[in-house]
């Protein structure tokens, strides 16, 4: 990771939105099976227009729909030692990493960015389920810490979008240690009296749920998201009975007091903007046209929110 991959590439990406044209122009909805045109799906933030199923969304696309004008500056995350255990199952960990990097075009399973949300400065981190199941290893831990430190130094709130199968087994005990490490990061925000908004997306499970994802000042989930510590399969094996419909889904957790709200992806940005202004004791948002963000940090053209999808010429 050098300054080119850190700053230049992401800036270009955020300017021209999606870099690669999907090979397959049609995608089948995981929920209802409808065939969806990729452009329509992207414009709808990977939410199926016919059944409202929320499919995974890449961190960059998430940030474009979150930050004002789709503009954000990546926050640098220190790279950990690669493959600290020399882990090998049927494949080498280093080969799995290479494959994930090639497949996603991303460096790791979490992206951190800063910008403005509804006019208010904010830091956000988003987990990438497409990158080894979003699994939390040293890098994700470093990303959460870097995000918290940046929020504290900028005196602004932190929003984390979690999506993970859990801890990254290939980093063994060090992946488990990300639970206390990320919790230290959340304590930094608490003690600086800065808001931490946790947005749980499909799926958020295991050690990720049992650390930062459940420690938000405000807990939001996307509709239908699977949120749990132990997954449904493990529980069914343990108790030897079938689990009820909707068990461990966002709506179920809301009913059981684990969440504040379930918010559809298209309304997420507005809801977060309102919460931030309330918690930061700022005046209500002006409606209608927002002023251009002052000095767009990468000098990029700020466009009208949300989710502009500049097509490639």
């Amino acid at each position: 990771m050098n300054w080119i991959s850190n700053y230049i590439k992401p800036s270009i990406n955020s300017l021209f939105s999606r870099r690669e044209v999907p090979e397959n122009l049609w995608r089948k909805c995981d929920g209802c099976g409808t065939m969806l045109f990729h452009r329509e799906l992207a414009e709808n933030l990977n939410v199926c227009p016919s059944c409202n199923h929320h499919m995974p969304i890449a961190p960059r696309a998430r940030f474009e729909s979150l930050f004002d004008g789709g503009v954000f500056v990546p926050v640098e995350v220190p790279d950990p030692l690669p493959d600290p255990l020399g882990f090998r199952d049927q494949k080498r960990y280093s080969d799995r990493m290479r494959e994930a990097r090639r497949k996603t075009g991303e460096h790791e399973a979490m992206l951190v960015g800063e910008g403005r949300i509804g006019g208010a400065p904010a830091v956000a981190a988003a987990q990438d389920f497409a990158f080894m199941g979003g699994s939390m290893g040293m890098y994700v831990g470093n990303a959460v810490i870097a995000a918290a430190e940046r929020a504290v130094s900028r005196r602004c709130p932190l929003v984390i979008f979690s999506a993970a199968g859990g801890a990254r087994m290939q980093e063994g005990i060090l992946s488990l240690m990300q639970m206390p490490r990320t919790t230290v990061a959340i304590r930094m925000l608490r003690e600086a009296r800065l808001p931490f908004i946790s947005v749980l997306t499909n799926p958020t499970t295991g050690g990720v749920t049992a650390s930062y994802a459940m420690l938000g000042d405000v807990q939001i989930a996307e509709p239908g998201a699977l949120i749990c510590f132990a997954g449904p399969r493990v529980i069914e094996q343990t108790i030897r009975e079938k689990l009820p419909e909707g068990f461990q889904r966002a709506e179920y957790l809301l009913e059981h007091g684990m969440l504040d709200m379930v918010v559809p992806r298209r309304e997420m940005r507005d809801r977060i903007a309102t919460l931030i202004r309330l918690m930061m004791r700022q005046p209500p948002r002006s409606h209608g046209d927002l002023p251009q963000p002052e000095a767009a940090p990468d000098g990029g053209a700020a466009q009208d929110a949300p989710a502009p999808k500049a097509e490639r010429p």
Partner: protein
Amino acid sequence: MQNYLDFEKGLSEIEGKAQELRSLAQRNPAMNVEREAAALDEKARELLREIYSRLDPWQKCQVARHPDRPHTRDYVAALFTEFTPLAGDRCFAEDHAVTAGMARFEDRPVVVIGHERGHDTRSRLHHNFGMARPEGYRKAARLMELADRFGLPVITLVDTPGAYPGKGAEERGQAEAIARCTERCLSIGVPIVSVVIGEGGSGGAVALATADRIAMLEHSVYSVISPEGCASILWKDAERMREAAVALRLTAQDLLKLGVIDRIIPEPVGGAQRNREETIARVGKAIGTLLREIEGMKPAARLAARRRKFLQMGAKALA
């Protein structure tokens, strides 16, 4: 009656022979077998030493789970005085998988918290095999807060296959309970010393093991996932747990090299299960030493150092 592990088969044969010989001699006083029996004893001792000097990671998992190892209640009975158990999370229930209370350790008042696995079928069921539900972690967090208010050091004993993966546990917020308990460990100023006495199973262990000083018994294990679970996910075959145990680097020796733990407490030859009293005494001595290392610090400095310790983890690699 000794419980033998599968890799101790040769040992059980030799010890069985010695025993047979002696019981034969008892019925027939004219026979003198003591020399032969003593030779067999010596052979058994030799073999035991050899087996335990080169346990592989999967064998260590088996030793760590051995039913005859001392459990939290044994340590509490032997090392603490005036143990006063406290119960309940004040929300829903009392969780018998976590034993907790106030007590004295070397005369100083402390709060002691530990997973309890049980020692026979009935007590194992009662303690849910050491698998805590959210109530266990909420009780632990409640007592940590109490300890902090009254300036009592916290001593935790970790011995769990993991947090209980049940329907009710999920409904009542298993993940949230673990997260809050870990957060409590990272927000109190009193000393926290943690000892992994058997199995340190994933998030269910971390919630009690986020401490200033972490020690592990020589043959205990501490891992992000059980070797069986890891094998079934990465090898698609739970029977490949031996390979998974090797790959996960879950032994005390590897964790010390990684800087995740601070100290290894040697076990008597043949493991904690063969000499419980000696093991307990060694753990007691280690807890005393570790507590003295951090007792003199100011609470804010101790807390800052604890956080720094976790932030710095990952700087050392094994590969």
